[in-house]
């Protein structure tokens, strides 16, 4: 009897502490994430903006805001821009990062000066994106250093107008995102590879597996959870691409709005205090992010668990 009450008491005490420790997260999440999220949904159904010093609305307009941003080649077009620029940056990023992390983590290669290289590849991420973008804007301007170098080396007679053409503008944005994030990805993947049991590699080598086979049969399958994490974080980061293109293209997504990303479009509406349209854009971005993350997670993780069950 006595024993039972004691146990009960202990149990209650523990759970109380558990809730106490969890509480800060839930309170902060509710105040700073959940309530704003719900109010965004609510705001997206109203016409509500300010022109100069005059406030218009809020007036309930139903789904008109959604019609507006989905028509006129609004959100679909900018989503496509975002996707293209993200892929242009992400594909080389994942390849280079994978290569570097396999080399760094390999026990047979034993790369020297690892911490030096790890620092160097991570460095671009420390620069503020806006400053980095400003730097590229100057480097690649019509009279900038890159054009001077190309001209004095005899490659071009007329300056190449990088920022006036769609492929080069998008390419530059992708290049910047690549440079800024491949270090981060390398370190994540390396942590994943180092977490794989060393004896698996040794066994494979004794059995005569080539490094290609080790990579495809051991590293890749066991790295899936980390790869999924990298994919999803990079995808979300890609959807939120803003500062680099905003600065590089003077905020208008030049040329021809082909470098306008979803968040730049959102920013356009927020800048004119158009909370209705901005709300609708935000809701769509939320849905796109949720759906894509769900698809990526399920697709890749089902393979992972599927393999495990087979094995």
């Amino acid at each position, binding site marked *: 009897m006595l024993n039972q009450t004691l146990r009960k008491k202990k149990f209650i005490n523990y759970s109380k502490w558990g809730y106490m420790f969890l509480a800060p997260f839930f309170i902060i999440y509710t105040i700073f994430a959940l309530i704003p999220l719900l109010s965004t949904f609510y705001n997206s159904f109203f016409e509500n903006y300010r022109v100069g*010093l005059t406030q218009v609305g809020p007036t309930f307009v139903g789904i008109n805001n959604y019609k507006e941003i989905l028509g006129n080649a609004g959100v679909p077009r900018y989503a496509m821009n975002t996707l293209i620029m993200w892929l242009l940056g992400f594909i080389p990023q994942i390849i280079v990062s994978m290569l570097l992390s396999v080399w760094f983590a390999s026990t047979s290669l034993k790369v020297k000066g690892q911490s030096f290289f790890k620092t160097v590849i991570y460095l671009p991420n420390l620069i503020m994106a806006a400053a980095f973008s400003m730097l590229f804007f100057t480097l690649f301007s019509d009279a900038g250093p890159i054009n001077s170098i190309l001209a004095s080396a005899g490659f071009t007679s007329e300056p190449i107008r990088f920022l006036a053409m769609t492929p080069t503008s998008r390419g530059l944005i992708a290049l910047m995102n690549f440079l800024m994030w491949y270090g981060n990805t390398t370190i994540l993947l390396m942590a994943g590879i180092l977490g794989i049991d060393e004896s698996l590699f040794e066994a494979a080598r004794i059995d005569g597996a080539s490094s290609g086979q080790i990579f495809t049969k051991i590293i890749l399958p066991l790295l899936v959870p980390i790869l999924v994490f990298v994919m999803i974080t990079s995808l979300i980061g890609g959807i939120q691409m803003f500062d680099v293109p905003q600065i590089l293209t003077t905020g208008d997504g030049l040329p021809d709005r082909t470098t306008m990303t979803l968040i730049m479009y959102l920013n356009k509406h927020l800048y004119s205090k158009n909370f209705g349209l901005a709300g609708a854009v935000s809701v769509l971005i939320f849905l796109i992010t949720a759906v894509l993350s769900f698809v990526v997670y399920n697709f890749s993780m089902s393979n992972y668990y599927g393999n495990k069950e087979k094995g």
Partner: protein
Amino acid sequence: MKKLNKFILALVLASVIVPSTFANGTKESAKAEMEQGKVLNIYAWNDEFQTRFNTYFADKLPADVTVNWIITPNADNAYQNKLDEALLVQDSVSNNEKIDIFLVEADYALKYVDTPYTLNVKTDIGLTDADVANQYGYTKDIMTDSKGNLKGVSWQACPGGFIYRRSIAKDVLGSSEPAAVQAALNDWNKFDAVAATAKSKGYFMLSGYDDAFRVFSDNMKSKWVVNNKINIDPSIERWIDMTKSYTDMGYNNKANLWSAESWGGAAVDGKVFGYFGPGWFVDFCLGPATLANPDAAKELGNGSYGDWGLVKGPQGFSWGGTWICAAAGTDNADLIKDVMYTLTCDVATLESIAMELGDFTNNEKSMANIASSDYGNTFLGGQNHIAAFLDSAKSIDRSNMSPYDQGMTEKLMNSFSDYFNGTITKDKAWDNFYTSVLELYPNLTK
């Protein structure tokens, strides 16, 4: 759970009550010092006014007054957004945080004139009719609201001209003298012909796409917005066609306005024949851009400084203009009166701004005096440019201004730069223009 509810309730109550008690506290204390504000908050978008203020007013500033400069660039409406935010909360912040003076530019002056956010410079601030009598009429018309109250004053009038490089004119036209150059450029057909000659000798007639824009936009016969509908004046169409053909024929250097490339064209090895600009363009923009050594004396031989001349060009126009407005709610009315008087009414100050800095200042009498004097501007090779501007200044007509000019100008230049570059068609450029304008001004229709 009940406890938690109580705790949250307490938290919410505290967050409501605590700041409001503090707010009350500051309001009370602010009332006490109502008589004499010690902080002068000035909102501006560049340091032009700051320099004028420091040069011509700083010694009259009471020793115990601190001046706060809140400077936000104009581009992308950043300045207006910041100013609007501050004006809308003007009533709820302490006196030391209130805006006292803010500057407005011609492109969006009208947005603030007919509002309760600006004070009447005569009844509220204390300038007299006699003080502003000699100011150019158009500078007062713009700032007069629908009830006839004057809401701001300016130290400058902004007639524009074509500022040309003397050595290039000599090479292209055979003469560098203003009279001969004006004779060669006095209508657009002649201007085009000179552009062709300049091109054949390896020069660019204009720096870039936007250089001639103000000449056309200032000669618009209708407003940008009529009954909330976007209206395109034929003058704007002419600018687009001219710029496209100039670009295709290589008559311009493809630079964007305010870009490093554009100023590079004015440097000593630059190839640009000339720039369209008003008085402030001479001193505030081209002057510094042409110096090879910014620390050395501003004289002929330092870069291309002094190798310039000014003519009226093919068509008269005006560009810009900065007005000083007093914000409603200020506690520095007396000081603002002094600032406004010294910088916009005081003949001695206005004459020295004109003679020392080359700006065309806002006093008809003084300008006439200087025009007939032997004054010469060193940047313009000793030319008396005030005389060249005098006639255009009298004929400035800004009755087709609208509060939307800044956004329209910026979006038009950005959208059409793609068309001039040859990336997109003209129709596509118009589409992009409408899209960006409607994002900026959701109340308008196409």
